């Protein structure tokens, strides 16, 4: 067996290109998959750490009047026997610019079975606890936060590094279970660093311990707070889908290489069979060969994947932070099962890709072995099976589409991915039979043109070897077009939406306690044409009502809920009303704005889709001590917001729900410079530098966040396309020697080498052109699936379908360009081969 195995492997000594192609396929497939999984694993680790923290999993209390809590509130409640613990949260800047979350706690009153207590067993030690709660205090932080202070593990414990503002942190103590960029310390130490005086951020209590909120306070139950893991689930599912696509494309290369390697070893297999090696033993040896190559490729891929993830993680972390407020470490933290999982997926994929080849090898008859005809007949059978498989996949896609059409909007993320997957699979499977039919049809029509006829007939002969690479190209191109059209459309919509929403020239974020004073000052200023104050408050959507039947007077059908929403107040002024985007209204824009001013509400698209609400429905909103039902007059787009939002007029929100002030939009009078007002404001109120922002910088920031959001998407689609190009190149290189053997007789019959070169390029360019043209409708279908189903289910908003002729042209050009590039190297080798070398290879095919 040992000898037979070495004999089988000896094929790669003569054909190192095929070995390289196999390993390349395995490597890239595994690298992209492992890279994305590394990012997902690292992010999930961060979520797990965040969720194990005391800021989640506990009920929260805040003042019902929207004013900040103070230490007196805490003391009053404790004296009354209410088991609450104070929390102080704030932001500080590290010397390298990293924004750190500071959490001040009182470990003596913090619920004993909170996650914090369980993550820090040493805290049981009285001495440690004493160090934590008494000056000079301690700072607990995760090792992956040390980089912000330029420290490493050896010199971290006990260090008192400075912050950007010069203050020094209490002595550091490492706590690996904490989330990244988070500092935990005693509440007194945090108050000193943050300069917050007696103010508290909130009070927390063990989940379910309080039956109701104490008087004057609002209770937020732990189970109504969305965790970062829940919020970002869709984002990670999208990434996994992209990685799966890359894995599939990579496995196309593998299957192409395996098929070629087996086809060229048919004679060798026959010889081994003749020498007494059984058919099943041969299949076993081929499987062993697969396993050896698979392990090699997977190990290289997983290591490269970790490297790729390390490069992409900062962008992903920034995206998750800006989109969902989820803190994700920029450092990779990979659990042991990541490595095993990567190996398992790669080997599983390899087995899947190789099973067809092994099956065919096991079924080949000994007598027929080695004859190209046997293999070709096999390909014709394969074409029929592909057409059949494609039909089944198309039916599955249709069935899912039919099912999705009957679901409420926003449902069926997995089904949406399944539908897109089946559409891709059907198209990929139909491609080879379609190309074969097209070539046969053209060949019959161009019989009189010898060279064209030959070129088409020759392409038919090449098709078995090129079809997998073409399938990979089709999948990669259409996915690329689909995703880039979606991103491009989203970009257009998002920029328009930003222009419509950001109508003020300046945005001011004043401290809550000075809001009224600043507002009054601004009202007096001649530079100010209009003020657009906003307010915000968390609330619970406790019921929705939908009027059924023709009679509008009939009572609405109510549904009880317990959904956290944000109440947001805007000022419907002359500048804001005409431009604020509305997707749907009950009785037109003017009536909607009039109703909003009178106390009714608008809701964002996310909430409308999630709860199946339309204009005319009612929403019952509750804050502690207050419960109000309002009619929905309009639905507005709210891109980038993961939460449901209810819009009210600011004065109404302040009056009805006591929402605290948030920001003030300042519309400047004609010809007034924003710098002058900014200077006057700073001189009068000594605002911090980030309290006042002009419209352009807000837009710039939003656009930057948008671009970063899609960095990984773009990177993955581009890499997938590169993989497909590599598949094509590898396929062509692997058969370059045989191609020369086919071309040489033609050259000998009097076709100039230059023309042969052009014909070779035209053959592949034409095939790629057809593939590229097929990728266009497929890409558009994918875009439609993404914007109509997947985005709605994943993010809660619907986008208009945009088709960019430039992107379409780029897709077709890329297809042809990739094919020509891949064909160029073998063609140049043909061009540069000496006549003797060319003729020396003239051995029977």
């Amino acid at each position, binding site marked *: 067996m040992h000898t037979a195995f070495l004999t089988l492997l000896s094929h790669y000594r003569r054909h190192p290109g095929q070995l390289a192609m196999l390993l390349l396929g395995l490597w890239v497939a595994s690298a992209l998959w492992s890279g994305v999984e590394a990012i997902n694993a690292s992010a999930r680790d961060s979520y797990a750490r965040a969720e194990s923290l005391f800021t989640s999993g506990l009920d929260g209390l805040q003042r019902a009047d929207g004013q900040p809590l103070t230490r007196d509130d805490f003391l009053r409640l404790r004296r009354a026997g209410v088991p609450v613990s104070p929390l102080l949260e704030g932001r500080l800047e590290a010397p390298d610019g990293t924004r750190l979350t500071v959490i001040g706690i009182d470990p003596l009153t913090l619920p004993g079975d909170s996650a914090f207590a369980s993550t820090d067993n040493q805290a049981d030690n009285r001495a440690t606890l004493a160090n934590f709660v008494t000056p000079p205090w301690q700072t607990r932080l995760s090792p992956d936060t040390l980089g912000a202070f330029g420290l490493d593990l050896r010199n971290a414990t006990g260090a008192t590094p400075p912050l950007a503002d010069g203050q020094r942190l209490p002595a550091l103590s490492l706590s690996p279970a904490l989330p990244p960029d988070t500092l935990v310390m005693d509440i007194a130490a945090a108050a000193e660093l943050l300069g917050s005086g007696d103010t508290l951020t909130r009070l927390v209590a063990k989940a379910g311990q309080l039956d109701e909120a104490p008087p004057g306070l609002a209770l937020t139950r732990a189970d109504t707070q969305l965790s970062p893991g829940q919020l970002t689930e869709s984002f990670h599912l999208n990434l996994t889908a992209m990685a799966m696509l890359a894995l599939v494309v990579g496995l196309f290369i593998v299957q192409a290489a395996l098929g070629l390697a087996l086809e060229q070893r048919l004679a060798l297999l026959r010889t081994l069979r003749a020498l007494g090696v059984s058919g099943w033993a041969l299949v076993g040896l081929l499987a062993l060969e697969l396993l050896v190559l698979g392990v090699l490729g997977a190990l290289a891929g997983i290591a490269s994947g970790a490297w790729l993830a390390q490069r992409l993680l900062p962008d992903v972390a920034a995206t998750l932070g800006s989109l969902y407020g989820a803190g994700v470490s920029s450092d990779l933290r990979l659990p042991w099962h990541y490595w095993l999982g990567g190996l398992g997926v790669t080997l599983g994929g390899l087995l899947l890709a190789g099973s067809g080849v092994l099956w065919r090898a096991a079924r080949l008859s000994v007598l027929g072995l080695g*004859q*190209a*005809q046997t293999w070709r007949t096999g390909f014709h059978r394969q074409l029929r099976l592909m057409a059949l498989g494609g039909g089944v996949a198309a039916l599955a896609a249709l069935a899912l589409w039919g099912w999705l059409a009957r679901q409420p909007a926003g449902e069926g993320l997995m089904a949406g991915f399944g539908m897109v997957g089946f559409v891709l699979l059907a198209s990929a499977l139909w491609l080879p039979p379609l190309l074969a039919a097209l070539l046969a049809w053209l060949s019959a029509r161009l*019989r*009189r*043109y*010898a*060279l064209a*006829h*030959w070129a088409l*007939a*020759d392409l*038919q*002969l090449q098709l078995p070897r090129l079809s997998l690479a073409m399938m990979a190209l089709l999948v990669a191109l259409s996915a690329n077009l689909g995703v880039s059209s979606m991103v491009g459309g989203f970009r257009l919509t998002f920029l328009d939406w930003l222009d419509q929403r950001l109508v003020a020239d300046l945005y001011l974020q004043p401290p809550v306690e000075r809001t009224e004073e600043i507002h009054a000052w601004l009202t007096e200023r001649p530079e100010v044409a209009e003020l657009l104050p906003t307010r915000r408050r968390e609330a619970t959507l406790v019921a929705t009502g939908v009027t059924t039947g023709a009679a509008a007077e009939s009572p609405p059908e109510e549904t009880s809920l317990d959904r956290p929403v944000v109440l947001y107040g805007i000022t419907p002024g002359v500048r804001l009303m005409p431009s604020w985007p509305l997707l749907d209204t009950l009785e037109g824009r003017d009536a909607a704005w009039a109703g909003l001013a009178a106390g009714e509400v608008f809701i964002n698209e996310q909430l409308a889709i999630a709860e199946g609400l339309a204009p005319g429905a009612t929403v019952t909103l509750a804050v502690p001590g207050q419960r109000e039902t309002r009619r929905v007059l309009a639905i507005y787009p709210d891109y980038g917001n993961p939460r449901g939002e209810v819009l009210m007029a600011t004065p109404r929100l302040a009056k009805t729900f006591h929402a605290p002030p948030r920001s003030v939009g300042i519309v400047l009078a004609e010809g007034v410079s924003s710098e002058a007002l900014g200077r006057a404001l700073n001189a009068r109120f000594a605002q911090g530098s980030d309290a006042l922002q002009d419209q352009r910088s807000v837009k710039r920031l939003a656009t930057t966040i948008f671009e970063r959001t899609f960095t990984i998407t773009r990177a993955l689609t581009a890499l997938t396309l590169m993989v497909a190009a590599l598949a094509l190149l590898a396929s062509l290189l692997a058969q370059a020697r045989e191609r020369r053997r*086919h071309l*040489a*007789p*033609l*050259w*000998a*019959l*009097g*076709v*100039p*080498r*230059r*023309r042969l070169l052009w014909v070779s390029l035209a053959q592949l360019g034409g095939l790629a052109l057809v593939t590229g043209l097929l990728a266009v409708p497929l890409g558009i279908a994918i875009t439609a699936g993404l914007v109509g189903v997947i985005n709605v289910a994943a993010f809660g908003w619907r986008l208009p379908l945009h088709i960019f002729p430039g992107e379409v042209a780029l897709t077709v050009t890329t297809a042809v360009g990739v094919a020509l590039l891949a064909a160029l190297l073998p063609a140049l080798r043909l061009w540069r081969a000496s*006549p*003797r070398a060319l*003729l020396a290879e*003239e*051995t*029977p*095919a």
Partner: protein
Amino acid sequence: MLDFCDVHKAYPTPQGPLRVLDGLDLRLAPGESLALMGESGSGKSTLLHLAAGLDLADHGEVLLAGESLARLGEPARARLRRESLGLVFQQFHLVPSLTVADNLRLQARLAGREDAEWSAELLARLGLSALARRYPEQLSGGQQQRLAIGRALAPRPALLLADEPTGNLDETTAGEVLELLLDLVRDTGCALLLVTHSAQVAAPLDRCERLSHGRLDHDPRAARP
């Protein structure tokens, strides 16, 4: 028809240049048939490649129908091959993706001088009419060689170059194929340069030369001490 004047050809090898043709002179008149014999590695195939313009001499001149091949560019040599030459290889080199009928017409079509009647006659005379729609790999060795001969003769070339055309065939089939080849050559009136190491194959041809050490044996210069 074909003239070799003091032709030299060597190939680089790790041990230094290997001289294959060393001042060879050869002349073939229109319609004449010549058998070229020699040991393996004596340069017979190289001579054929030079005659077809597939390769160029290092020194000396190869003239085809009065034109010096060395002075022609690659496209012009290809045109000459397409229009004036027929090539028959020992290993057939049929195009596997084309049917028997399309293979037979391939060169004539490339040369733009397809004659449907002549193609049909050739197919019939070669005994391939019934197999016209098959593919080369579905033919026997003898049938494949007959098809290769038909392809070479379909454009009615002025010169047919044949490299061991019966080398891969059994004795009976070889005899049949050779007879057919000579019949067709006679009927088309083309010249024939046939490379073989079989005296039996060489016998029916007008002339026979032996290639040895890069020169023809009859060459008077080769006989000099």
